[in-house]
């Protein structure tokens, strides 16, 4: 028993080390006053954070990423709900094929999707705009919202919609007042995951941005190609802290369990 106890602790420790370790290292790096990166720790400083806040390119990129992520997550949540509703509610011909097709974007390497989208936009004669970027992010994050909402709807008793109908609610109001509130957890969780996945995504955006639509990961990547200093670690730390903060805030606000 003692041996088992020891090994299960060791196992747990390793899990924590590899999940949280890299993020801790980045945060420590961002507080390091040494000008090269990575380098041994000298003294604690916040100068890199101050530098980020004065760095227009990073600030613009953060705003672009936030806009793209918000739009992609919103569209993916709406479309994901509609698709999940149809798939769960009605017996459809080729139901499994449709579900697999809609989940397919996760199976294709993202850089391939990005490249393919670039070619498609070129064929259609569409400029590289924010819309193209939002479209490709939406396609990529929709499988997550779809899956989560499908799971939520699988536990939903559609008899409740019939009850609402019998009480005089039309189809739309039945969904609005009964179905949506009862799959709220799945919708919010889907939106949060979609937002974060889009916000941190690099390969999808790689071919689809121009200087005015460069997302944060693109700017970070470009920055690291030319120079290495803890500035980029500060940006990364801000993203990690923001992601955790968003998730925790949403959990608190809606009394949900998103992080298990």
């Amino acid at each position: 028993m003692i041996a088992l106890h020891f090994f299960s602790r060791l196992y747990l420790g390793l899990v924590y080390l590899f999940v949280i370790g890299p993020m801790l290292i980045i945060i420590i790096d961002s507080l390091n006053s040494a000008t090269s990166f990575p380098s041994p720790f000298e003294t604690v400083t916040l100068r890199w954070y101050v530098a980020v806040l004065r760095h227009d390119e990073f600030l613009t990129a953060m705003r672009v990423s936030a806009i793209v992520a918000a739009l992609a997550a919103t569209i993916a949540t709406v479309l994901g709900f509609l698709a999940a509703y149809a798939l769960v509610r009605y017996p459809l011909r080729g139901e499994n094929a449709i579900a697999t097709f809609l989940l397919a974007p996760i199976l294709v390497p993202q850089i391939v999707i990005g490249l393919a989208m670039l070619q498609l936009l070129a064929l259609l004669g569409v400029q590289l705009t924010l819309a193209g970027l939002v479209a490709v992010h939406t396609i990529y994050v929709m499988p997550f919202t779809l899956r989560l909402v499908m799971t939520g709807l699988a536990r939903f008793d559609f008899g409740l919609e019939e009850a609402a109908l019998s009480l005089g609610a039309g189809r739309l109001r039945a969904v609005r007042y009964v179905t949506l509130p009862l799959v709220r957890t799945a919708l919010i969780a889907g939106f949060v995951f979609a937002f974060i996945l889009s916000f941190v995504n690099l390969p999808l955006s790689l071919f689809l941005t121009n200087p005015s639509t460069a997302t944060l990961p693109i700017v970070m990547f470009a920055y690291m190609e030319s120079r290495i200093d803890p500035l980029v670690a500060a940006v990364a730390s801000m993203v990690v802290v923001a992601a955790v903060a968003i998730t925790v805030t949403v959990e608190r606000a809606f009394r949900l369990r998103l992080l298990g």
Partner: protein
Amino acid sequence: MPYLELASVTKNYRSIMALTDLSLNVDAGELMCLLGPSGCGKTTTLRIIAGFATVDRGHVRLGGDDITRVPPQKRDIGVVFQNYALFPHLTVNQNVGFGLAMRNQKRGEIAAAVREALRLVRLDDVGDRLPRQLSGGQQQRVALARAIAIRPRLLLLDEPLSNLDAKLRDEMRDEIRRVQRAVSITTVFVTHDQIEALALADRMAVMDRGRVVQVDTPINVYERPKHPFVASFIGQANLLRGTVTAAQGEHVRFETASPLAIVGVGRAMANGRAVIGVVKSERIRLSRGAPLDVANVFPARIESRTYLGASIHYRCAASGEKLLATEPNRPDAVLFEPGAPIFVSFLPADCLVLADERTNDAG
């Protein structure tokens, strides 16, 4: 003119004929029970009345209006579902007021109507609770209050008591009857439980394989079944198959294969006709000696005895015929032992003779 009318309704699910040319009339203020075994189409009938299912052929009329193609939200029909279908995210008050809110009534009017509906089902002080904080019986009352709060033109109940334990079931059965009378609302109640139907219904429709077999008062359905299916489904009846050997007036003499010569009552039938004699188990008398005053007396043997408290069930064999007899457990009741030789007897008036359609169709 009937208040609710189903006229020649036919419904197919894929290739399965769910309802076949079903017609049913319900009068205003009446409580009609649809009774039948599972799969007989009673729930499908209810869903068609509510508008949740469409018909392939036929018409549904309510208060003179043809509502066959009217969507459920425009029918003004209150429904109590088998699992209650209370909205789990809404309080009791919000559940009961839901229908009124959908009718865009004023806040104050809704609150008053909700109070009134909850008072009617005798539920006080639970208005702010969520459904999951209520007992099964309370949830049932909320479901009933929610359905009647909209002052519906018709109330439908789909096996509303099947999720309650036996004691609560009897209590809620009487509650439903009381509320139905109090608001004098035309009601259709679906059940597979004959006791429920007998106790509640003004009239009951017995269904079998997508058809209504008999519509009548509970007493008539029980005492005077018109069809062997009704006779076998309601109560505990012995079905004795035989052929007519003589008929005089309403008395019919027939002989079973066992052979027993039995006298019963029925409409005049030709000799040689295949018939079924229906004898309810409680109308069969058991005695040690042969009673002299009745026509149908047969020597028999007790095969088994089941003690049920209020009554005692005996399985007997008379010649080759197996009979079930139910004796009330009176203080002076004699307990017969299995294996004991006895006499079974019943009055001709207690043996209803019906044409055996099955045999006649086949032959």
